[in-house]
């Protein structure tokens, strides 16, 4: 029996390698002397023909370059030192503008053998005057979008916790897996993203079933403790994350469809159509999950197992079957979250891991183990993250969400929808 389990695990990893392997691009080694380099992109498209002039700090010319068809430019430098990099505004094509019109020259230090990347962001000026109220509405909608995506992933995590007691640190990798398998079918195979996403959900559901069968079901049968299982899930998370890095590479890539869209303005809110669709899809899926949990026999059985596994088993519910279904649906929902997250912020080997702690925050906030708590918690975390950028720097927005996680544990450890029971 154990041999079969290990064969299964090997098959799972092998399948993963096959699925992702074709998407891998070998990184090319770069050697050579000092240079400054950069890429011009405007609304996702490379811009050709922009002139860049580099001079030493003393004013000696060091070289010029013009961006090529990929938007790339490179200037070889005579040696390390401080250089002034200047963009020729006249060479900008019609309609292409600098995000900050005054930022046309930069002074950069270049270390020995360094390939110094210099960025001139192109795009609409971000210094558009927008009232705080309008900004708040825009951020609320963006927060809802992020919260809905988080909710897809956190319901799975919460149900798995509720039915098996496992705090699954490898749940983030289920999200990444979804994003990557969709990338494989969309970009490498060349299917349309919607078809790719549907296949991804089915594949990931199957992989969720497989993961439960070869790993977690075996551990439950052995009577492994919950903390031991949690540490196993951490090992699995590290392992899978670096398998993704190995196969996919460290860069961030986007899907072939819907990556460039002009945003749509509805009153004060301006979002790309893909974002509205993401929100609609996520909402429909969440309503569906809610319906299944509340109205169907299977959903009632799931909630019963969440409540008290022994009592559920005694009343004739097949607990293992419920757990299997929870794993399948949890993995499928996480995969959908991965695809939507990939559309919203591109695909990277640690995209799932980066939101894992936010998912934990959402699940704890709503109440560990309650599906609707996870939904409420996710929306709050999503909104909080976006709205907090009104007062704190955007790079610190996740910090705020993690900080409320700690605060909520101080005042209401059972979470918003959790029952008042002893959690100590």
């Amino acid at each position, binding site marked *: 029996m154990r041999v079969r389990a290990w064969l299964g695990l090997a098959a799972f990893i092998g399948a993963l390698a096959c699925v992702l392997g074709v998407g891998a691009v070998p*990184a090319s080694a770069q050697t050579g002397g000092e240079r400054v380099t950069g890429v011009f992109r405007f609304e996702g498209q490379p811009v050709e023909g922009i002139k860049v002039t580099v001079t030493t700090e003393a004013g000696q010319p060091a070289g010029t370059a013009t961006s090529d068809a990929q938007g790339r430019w490179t200037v070889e430098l005579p040696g390390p030192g401080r250089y002034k990099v200047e963009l020729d505004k006249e060479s900008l094509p019609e309609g292409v503008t600098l995000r900050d019109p005054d930022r046309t020259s930069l002074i950069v230090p270049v270390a020995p053998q360094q390939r110094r990347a210099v960025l001139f962001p192109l795009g609409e000026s971000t210094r558009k005057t927008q009232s705080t109220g309008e900004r708040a509405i825009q951020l609320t909608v963006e927060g809802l979008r992020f919260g809905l995506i988080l909710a897809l992933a956190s319901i799975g995590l919460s149900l798995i916790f509720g039915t098996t007691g496992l705090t699954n640190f490898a749940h983030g990798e289920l999200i990444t897996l979804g994003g990557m398998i969709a990338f494989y079918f969309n970009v490498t195979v060349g299917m349309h993203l919607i078809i790719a996403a549907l296949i991804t959900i089915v594949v990931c559901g199957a992989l969720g079933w497989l993961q439960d069968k070869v790993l977690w079901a075996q551990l439950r049968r052995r009577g492994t403790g919950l*903390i*031991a299982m949690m540490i196993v899930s951490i*090992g699995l998370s*590290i392992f899978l994350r670096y398998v993704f890095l190995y196969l996919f590479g460290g860069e961030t890539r986007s899907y072939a469809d819907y990556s460039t869209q002009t945003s749509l303005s509805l009153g004060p809110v301006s979002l790309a159509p893909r974002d509205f669709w993401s929100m609609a899809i996520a909402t429909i899926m969440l309503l569906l999950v809610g319906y299944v949990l509340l109205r169907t026999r299977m959903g009632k059985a799931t909630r019963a197992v969440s409540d008290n596994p022994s009592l559920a088993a005694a009343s004739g519910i097949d607990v293992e079957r419920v757990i299997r279904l929870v794993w399948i649906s949890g993995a499928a929902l996480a995969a959908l979250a991965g695809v939507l997250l990939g559309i919203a912020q591109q695909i990277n080997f640690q995209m799932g891991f980066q939101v894992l702690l936010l998912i934990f925050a959402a699940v704890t906030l709503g109440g560990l183990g309650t599906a609707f708590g996870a939904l409420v918690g996710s929306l709050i975390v999503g909104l909080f993250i976006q709205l907090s950028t009104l007062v704190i720097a955007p790079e*610190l927005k996740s*910090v705020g969400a993690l900080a409320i996680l700690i605060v909520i544990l101080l005042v209401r450890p059972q979470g918003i929808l959790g029952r008042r029971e002893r959690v100590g």
Partner: protein
Amino acid sequence: MDWGQIISNALRSIVGLEAVIYGLAAIGLNMHFGYTGLLNFGQAAFLAVAAYGLAISVSIAGLPFWVGILAGLAGAVVLALLLGAPTLRLRADYLAIVTIAAAEIFRLVVRSATLRDQTGGSSGLPGGFAPFAEGFYDLNPFGPGEYGFGPFRFSERPFWALVVGWTLVVLSCLVIFLLMRSPWGRVVKAIREDEDAVRSLGKNVYAYKMQSLIIGGLIGALAGFIFALGRASVQPDLYGTELTFFAYTVLILGGAARVFGPVVGAMIFWCLLSLTDNILFQAIDAGYIPTWLMDSNQVGQVRFMVVGLALMLLMIFRPQGIFGDKREIALDAR
């Protein structure tokens, strides 16, 4: 393939700085997880707080070296109080989630551009600009030259760091050993076994847990000092969650709830990692591994896969590690 080189590198990593750093971090975790049953997933934060406490007070504020050390230790105590206050009364997995979140909060805050003047932002604080590490190397009694024998030859600066590091490891082990023989240690171990029973004996479980968190955190802080001084720089992304989980792997490999478990674990861990790294590098150089399968950039990634897999397999098949006692491993959620 140059097997002499591979083996000598592996031998060096047995006593190397990584073994010291992860050994100390794991000794701290042993106090938390092995003896008290506290699931601290934020050990990286204790290292980071100490390293930044030292670097900021010396390099930015211009204080003397020893004040920097005190600041780092004080930082670790404050962090332990902050983490413990909300969570030590709750179930084990809450502490896990809060500590990992706190570690990430600390890392994200110190690497943010807003604080670049104080913390150096994402590039951290190099010792070269305002050399906080020089205060440490000024104390070096060893003159320029090479010390040691055979494969274990180090120049004076790493040698000094190693001497101090291993002294701290031995002292920490001694402290743990003495504490665990004392009545205090017996209470702490009893808390791991059955918290309610200890409470019914009239012991203040919360206070004992908090003391354990502080002691383990202080030992983690020592690891942070050695990490910062050995590299003569502090970089935020070195204090990510991977550091904590590497330390867990070290602890579980050696055997939790054993005084020398984490130390032996760290030695074996880094020796094995050095072996796999070097063998893979040389195999790629020699062309035994085709480049479409793996290039030298990917060797570092294989290391993480090996650690992840090792952590899983150890936890499944041998949770007591090499020297541990299965009856002494706290693996049930409470």
